């Protein structure tokens, strides 16, 4: 089973800051997006159980290589890094276009993507890629397994009441959640092995994409202002016995038409 895992290199949580033009500063200190690590873990488990290989795919600046190295150390087979100066400041639409073009160049049975990213909170790029490529799209996966016939993938999709069981022919794109299971820590051996693994770097020219369609100049959205939020009002702390506390909480919510 050949699995491509889409990885976004994001600023280390807590260290995010905006740079020029209110764009997220991704010049250094990047790590794999947390949700992407969960789907990478699921991909590694699948290939360990059923055979195959895992390819990481990212689009980002040179510093994104740090995130790829961690993924390789966790056990991925190789990495593909789409990197081009013209990509700086790309919006979600351009990102989906670029990643879709890169996926067209790869051979795979499944493509995995994590749910929302910690910096952009979007959660829409995977669906956009699936639509562009005409791939079956199975989102919010809590469990992923190959079908009995080897030509399909079966996913438990989270729902408000539990989950739905979906099945689709491969190739397909699966967007996974943290319910898939905790990602592993890279072992020392894995870190050492990662240094010798293949990392391909593709430019926009390699993908046949016009630079005018991507980057800050072509961005379809823009940040107008950015400022720390106003301080919150003080919290109401209830220290009463449970029965009284419940009553007070219900009253509190009812006063705000929340129950």
């Amino acid at each position, binding site marked *: 089973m050949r699995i491509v895992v889409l990885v976004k290199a994001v600023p280390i949580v807590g260290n995010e800051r905006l740079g020029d033009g209110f764009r997220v500063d991704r010049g250094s200190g990047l790590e794999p997006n947390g949700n992407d690590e969960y789907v990478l873990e699921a991909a590694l488990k699948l290939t360990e159980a059923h055979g195959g290989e895992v390819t990481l795919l990212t689009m980002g600046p040179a510093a994104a290589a740090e995130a790829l190295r961690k993924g390789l150390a966790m056990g991925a087979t190789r990495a593909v890094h789409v990197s081009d100066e013209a990509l700086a400041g790309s919006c979600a639409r351009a990102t*989906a276009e670029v990643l879709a073009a890169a996926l067209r160049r790869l051979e795979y049975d499944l493509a995995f993507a994590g749910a929302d990213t910690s*910096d952009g909170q979007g959660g829409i790029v995977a*669906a956009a890629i699936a639509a562009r490529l005409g791939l079956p*799209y199975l989102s919010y996966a809590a469990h992923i397994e190959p079908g009995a016939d080897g030509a399909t993938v079966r996913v438990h999709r989270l729902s408000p009441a539990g989950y*739905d*069981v979906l099945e*689709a022919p491969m190739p397909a794109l699966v967007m996974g959640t943290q319910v898939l299971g905790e990602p592993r820590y890279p072992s020392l051996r894995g870190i050492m092995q990662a240094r010798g693994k293949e990392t391909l770097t593709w430019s926009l020219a390699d993908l046949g994409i016009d630079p005018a369609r991507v980057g800050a100049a072509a961005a379809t959205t823009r940040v*107008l202002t*950015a400022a720390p939020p106003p301080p919150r009002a003080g919290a109401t702390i209830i220290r009463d016995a449970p029965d009284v506390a419940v009553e007070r909480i219900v009253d509190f919510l009812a006063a705000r038409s929340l129950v």
Partner: protein
Amino acid sequence: MAAIWAVAELAGGRPTRLSLELATLARQLAQASGGTATVVAVGSGAAGAAKELAALGPRVIAVEAPTEGDRPAASVVAPRLAALAGEARPDVLLVPASPDGKDVAGFLSALLELPVLVSAAGVRWADGGPVVQMSTFGGRLGTESAFTHGRGIILVRPGTATAEPALRHVVHARGDDEISHGLSQVAEQVGGTLLAEEAAEQTEDDVHGRRQHAERGHEQIEIQIQLADDGAPLFAAARAAGGHLRPPPRQQPHRQPRQESGREPGQLLAQIRAEEAFGQRADEHADLAAQPNQHGRQADGRDQIEIQAAQAGLARRFAGQRFIAAQGARVVGPQDRHPDDARVHELDVVDARRHLADDAGEADQH
């Protein structure tokens, strides 16, 4: 004038709370921009949900589609929304920031080449477009963002607006003799103004009041939606069909005694003829064709407006699925699979029943 669309999600045939909030937000943005608000509900039970959504003010387009069937909801909703939005080209699409909503937004972004602003905690109208407030970096920073070129999709978080019913209102359309608009334009005016449910509740006093208003302003014609026998407006039929607005000669208006139709006179100010709209399905709409003859003169003392449906691309495009009017239950075609469904929508749900997390073993048996 901006066209604001809100996408409603359905659960058990009813709009979700977030959908009601979006309908209200759409109305507020439309008011701020001087534009129009529309709610689009696609899914199982859309017709029933439309009644609830309509109370919030915007025009409602309800498309019956099998979202509770054997395919993920977003894969059913997105292509239909894309077809509608591709035709009407709304300026803003408000989509719930729910799991299904994010899937829909992603699909629409790719299908319509539209930008997306995500996690909106507030939306206001400024400088000719929406300005979206969001909290980022774990709440450490608040940002305001906008579309570069005006149009786009906004994923709206719960609690951004409070769902509030709209005040009743009637919009007047100019009764210029030279009027010859596309029916979609007419529908924009009609659909957003007076809903059938409201019309059914009108009293004689309401009607008189509006008549007087119309008599004072001769250049204006009041448009309402004619009711079908089941109480549903014929709006969807007309809108799906396309056509034109054509006021009859001014000498035609005449007063007729109230007919024993069980309706208040004020319910009928416009005629929507759909007998030509659906080709081979004309028989299904024979009742629609007959209605102008039965009730067409009830708009006594005023200009009549005839909305004559004609063959149009939209009708053909949606042939084969149910397209239902805002107030529900006006089926203009058989329910069937959307012809434009792409490969992505060919997912088979092995078992769409809800399983509890510990029922994995049982799920495998299906």
